[in-house]
């Protein structure tokens, strides 16, 4: 379970996150929606422990800077952060060793799952952006984390990879993991989410739970444009 309580993050005088609080339960997929500059990546980076902030962030009840919490967290950054001179396979080997994952077979499974087997000997600098993103996803999943955060994961992926990634989201959910996805592309998230937080100016402007069949509910599109543009879609 991921729990964010009263997180505030300032860059000099700019308030990127203003007292954010939300929770993603086990087996739940949460979405952070918002226009560019809404503060989505900032909160994602704060959860990953990459930024300093005020407030508390807990991974399965542990502070996110705790070693055990780090072990239970997987993070896929917006821009894939690969090492230029390591091959795809060596990236997975490095992360497997750094996270002390004993099971060697998990590397092969991920390579096959993300259709990277034929690219295993390619270096990071030789890969397309989409391929780099796939490697980045594999690196985040290799240690079998229970909370996984994705920052704009669809950017740069081809339709087949997007379909595959959506399948991964569903599987992670089925395995009882907490998944948080930050995106500004509403049309890519379809219907697999459980809770969506719409962010605007560093705050959560609205939260919507996915309860199909309720005619009273506004669609996510309608709610998003109402908040971000101040008008109905």
């Amino acid at each position, binding site marked *: 379970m991921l729990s964010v309580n009263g997180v505030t993050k300032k860059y000099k005088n700019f308030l990127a996150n203003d007292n954010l609080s939300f929770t993603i339960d086990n087996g739940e997929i949460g979405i952070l929606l918002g226009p560019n500059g809404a503060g989505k990546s900032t909160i994602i980076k704060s959860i990953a422990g*990459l930024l300093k902030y005020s407030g508390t962030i807990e991974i399965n009840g542990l502070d996110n800077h705790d070693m055990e919490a780090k*072990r239970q967290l997987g993070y896929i950054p917006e821009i894939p*952060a690969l090492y230029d001179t390591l091959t795809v396979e060596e990236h997975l080997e490095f992360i497997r*060793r750094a*996270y002390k994952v004993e099971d060697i077979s998990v590397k092969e499974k991920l390579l096959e799952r993300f259709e990277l087997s034929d690219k295993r000997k390619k270096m990071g600098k030789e890969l397309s*952006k989409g391929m780099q993103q796939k490697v980045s996803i594999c690196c985040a999943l290799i240690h079998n984390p229970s909370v996984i955060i994705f920052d704009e994961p669809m950017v740069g992926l081809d339709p087949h990879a997007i379909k595959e990634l959506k399948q991964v989201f569903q599987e992670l959910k089925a395995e009882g993991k907490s998944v948080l996805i930050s995106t500004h592309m509403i049309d890519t998230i379809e219907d697999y989410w459980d809770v969506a937080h719409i962010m605007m100016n560093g705050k959560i402007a609205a939260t919507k739970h996915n309860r199909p069949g309720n005619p009273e509910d506004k669609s996510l599109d309608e709610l998003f444009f109402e908040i971000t543009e101040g008008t109905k879609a």
Partner: protein
Amino acid sequence: MLSATFYRLRKAAAKKPWMVILVLLALAFSCLMIAVPSMSGGADGIERDMSLVLGGINILFIVMFNFIFFTGLKNGLVGFSNADVNFHLAGPFTQRFNLFIAAGGVFKLCIILLWVLCCQSSVLHMSIGVNSFDIIALLLGSVPVFAFGYFIAAFFSACFWDNEAAIKKVQMTLIGLDVIYVVLNLKGLLDTYGSFSDLRALGLRGIIANAGTTTWSNLFPVAGWTNLIYSGILLKDNMYIIAGILLTVLTAAAIIILYSRVDLNYYEAAIENAQKVADLQEAKKAGIDSDTAKVNRKIKVGKETFNKGWGATAFTQRHLFENQRASKLFFVNPLAITYRLITAAYMFIMGKAVTFEGMDFAGGRSIGPIISGVTMMVILNAIVYGGGKTVLEFNKPYIFMVPEKGSKKLFCCLMAELPEMIFDSLLCTLLMVFFADMTITEGIAFGIMMVVFDMLFELIALVAIRIFRQLGRVLLVITRYFAGYIIIMTTLAPMIITTALTGSLAAGFLAAAGYGIVLALIFLAIARNTVDKVELA
């Protein structure tokens, strides 16, 4: 079109007033440095030898031509941005006109090089006796050398962008020309002076004065022709001036004809390169960059395997593995080796040419090579280790995220750099023994001092990114290098005092090393929590 480009440049400059101030300061400093060689009015005892001045300038022109030609050949199509692709390449302009757009980046590099050359005016004055007028001639002469060199090379680059073999042939042609030039010059000198031992007796200055003023040197494409004009001015020989101007004008005409007659078709390569530049910039915005990207370009996967390290030590092993992949040896950093070669060339030239009157050691051993060597090594190592692998690790999330204690991960990264620091210091020792006539003991002491300095540069950089992260990328890089230089300068005090008291240079180096270790421990204490205290971007 040009007015639109100038408008864009003006607007960009207006958005960065501090950059304009920096440029103005740099210009003012250049003027001062140009004036320095003539300030003494001959009181410094340096005699002006016309042949040495002309020979030295000609050789500098030849080096500049080679540099710009190879740069243009390699990077002729890299200077486009995505905005250039959208507005220039897709606009109603010819391919040959748009090729000029890519020149901007390369000319910025040329301006920086010329500025560095200006800053070396005192060294040039002491080594080849140039005065302020010569420096101005050198700067003016470099304009056609750089411009023609670049446009010829960029033309070949655009013609053969999809034909690596043809590019190689062009490269080999210039290398061949260089070899022919050296062989012909050597033959001419041997014919004049009789034997190698007589040549050696001339000294470096004598060789430069002779080799740089031969017919072959004056006929060297573009560089020699430009120098002909200046030779004519100094020697009051109108034939030289006319020949130089004629050859330069003909070259310009030939380039214009070349560009106007041949159909170019290089947009595909330009677009691909523009995308790569855009990807790099995007990655930089996200805090991911690699100071060694240029070195990495040539690295290929070999038979090496990554199968060591567990937890934090995986970082150590990965760093060593990256070295192994890049250089086949885990203790060799290719970037440091490149800089060491530059140092060797610099020490060779400066060591033989620069003297510090009244400061040499008893027994006639010159202090010049030691000062030039130490200065160059310290300046370059600040770049190598001030932006070393540990510092670069902070551009990626893994060092923050891997579930190990921050100080342990940091220590593992630093330890990975120790073998390459030791190897690099060994090279420094050899250079000092070979070029600066140091004894083995002095060399070893110097090597120990360099290991300490390298580690100090790394730790200073870590502390700088911890404290000054908010300054932004550019200022942070400048801050960390200059902080390194200032702190290293403080080690001069114990070095000089100890050397003066004991009369031993080795003791001086060891004193500086000891003082450096104390500083390093202080910085280590501050830096040890860096992983936990620093933000990714």
